[in-house]
């Protein structure tokens, strides 16, 4: 941690701003991802992420602008189209949900890669930079870009903070919420749209291939440490923030390393640590309490024993 802090302190101004913006993205992705994971929408987010490349490429092709905002709006549009396609396939064909998701994911990704490769080989201006959306490359971000990403992230977190009651009710039991008069289906759409937005602003940091990790891993880490929703949101936000920050700093120290893989590796380090040592759910903690080899108090042993087997299998 101290090394990381020292490394941050000696970074140039632009890198600092970028690091702050990307850290905000990581935090928001963790918070919104928590609801995505609880509502079992992780794969939808992954399909949306892979579909962003098409929109990013089309945005450059149609407008000729390399402005990040323009490219990301393009990415968001194609992510939305992918989600609509996913819903239509599920509704009008007999394709199973997981297969439908896999189809949309691979087809849209294939299309995106084809578009980008074609543009690069024809030497279309700016197309060379599109590769950074594949695996993430924060070194090429400007302070203005970072401000945009940070602002969107803050708005995303605010949406969750303001609508916490509604989001929780619908995520836990949509039928009960709907029977009580809440527009559960619409709120579900809002949640999916928020996930799509987070996936898009996460593109520069993690890239289309890996950005899902930013939405999925921090909540998984957080769930290891708590049984309550608000702490889970806070921990997921913190883990997302630190992973993104760590990824930016570490990848800027190592020349020619894309940011995405480093972000994912940092997040994974948190996950492995949590799976091992988190109280109640952690593997080490459970073996200790079950075998009774150490001096764990009786109450703790009881809690450990009461943990259903289902949870163990989920690990």
């Amino acid at each position, binding site marked *: 941690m101290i090394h990381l802090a020292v490394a941050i302190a000696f970074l140039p101004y632009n890198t600092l701003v970028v690091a702050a913006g990307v850290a905000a993205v990581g935090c928001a992705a963790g918070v919104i991802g928590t609801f995505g994971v*609880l509502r079992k929408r992780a794969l939808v987010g992954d399909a949306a992420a892979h579909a962003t490349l098409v929109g990013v490429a089309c945005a450059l092709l149609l407008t000729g602008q390399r402005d990040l905002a323009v490219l990301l709006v393009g990415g968001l549009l194609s992510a939305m189209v992918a989600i609509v396609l996913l819903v239509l396939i599920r509704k009008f064909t007999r394709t199973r949900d997981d297969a439908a998701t896999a189809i949309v994911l691979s087809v849209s990704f294939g299309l995106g890669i084809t578009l980008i490769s074609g543009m690069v080989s024809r030497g279309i201006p700016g197309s060379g930079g599109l590769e950074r959306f594949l695996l993430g490359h924060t070194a090429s971000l400007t302070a203005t870009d970072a401000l945009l990403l940070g602002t969107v992230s803050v708005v995303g977190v605010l949406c969750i903070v303001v609508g916490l*009651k509604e989001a929780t*009710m619908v995520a836990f*039991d949509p039928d*009960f919420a709907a029977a*009580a008069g809440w527009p559960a289906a619409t709120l579900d759409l809002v949640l999916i749209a928020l996930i799509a937005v987070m996936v898009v602003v996460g593109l520069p940091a993690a890239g289309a291939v890996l950005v899902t990790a930013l939405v999925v891993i921090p909540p998984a880490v957080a769930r290891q440490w708590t049984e309550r*929703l608000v702490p*889970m949101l806070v921990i997921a936000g913190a883990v997302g923030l630190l992973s993104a920050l760590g990824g930016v700093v570490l990848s800027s120290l190592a020349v020619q390393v894309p940011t995405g893989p480093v972000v994912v590796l940092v997040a994974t380090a948190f996950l492995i640590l949590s799976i091992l040592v988190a109280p109640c759910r952690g593997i080490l903690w459970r073996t200790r309490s079950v075998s009774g080899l150490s001096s764990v108090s009786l109450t703790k042993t009881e809690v450990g024993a009461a943990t259903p087997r289902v949870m163990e299998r989920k690990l």
Partner: protein
Amino acid sequence: MAGNNSAREVHVAHPMLEWHDLTVAYGRRPVLWNVDFEIQDPCLFGIIGPNGAGKSTLLKASLDLVRRAGGTVRFWGQQLAEVRSKIAYVPQRETVDWDFPVSVMDVVRMGATSRLGWFQRGGKRERELARASLDHVGLADFANRQIGKLSGGQQQRVFLARALAREAEIYLLDEPMAGVDAGSQEQIFNILAELRDQGKLVIAVHHDIRTAAEWFDAVALVDMRLVAAGPTAEVLTPENLTMTYSGRLSILDEIGEAVERGGRTP
């Protein structure tokens, strides 16, 4: 509560709940066909029928959770949208993820805060209401426990407490006895009977004919169509049960027992 009283006075001529020609289809397969009956007064009402008979769908269609292909549902002669605050729904237990990171108290509080407007979190009143509801179902000691660390019967009572926190007039419960041991079942039935005694209408989807004959004031036998509806003793006749469960040999014994037992019940 003033609103409830005035609603009762104004709509005294209307039954509490009525279904007219209700038809629901999943794709092309009809699940409910021309279901038509009404419940006039507060009572403990059972919806009985074999698996896949459309019992749960009947509740969901009444609450606009599934689309109706035809027919109408009226509460005190009014549309659902006008009376939602007086209705509480208890979904089937397995429809939610019990590993969800919420405590027992959190879930019950959702019942209280579901009555508030957008973005209102609720305060002392909602907390007290949730606490009282939890007390009512005998789970006050489990308030801070994560919901996955409860038995089936306890989970079902958490759902019931969440519905109680809505302070409703009509309760619609989907299989409240599924996966519940005999002791908890008695406890839940007692709470439901208590609600009935307070003038509430309690409707429960139920699959066990034996306990149905014992507890429900009135029942509807459903097998896609409505076979019969009315006072329990009049409806649970051998003829009606055979009609409802025709061709389902595995439970003929159960029917025989139930009829015997139903005959003894005054």
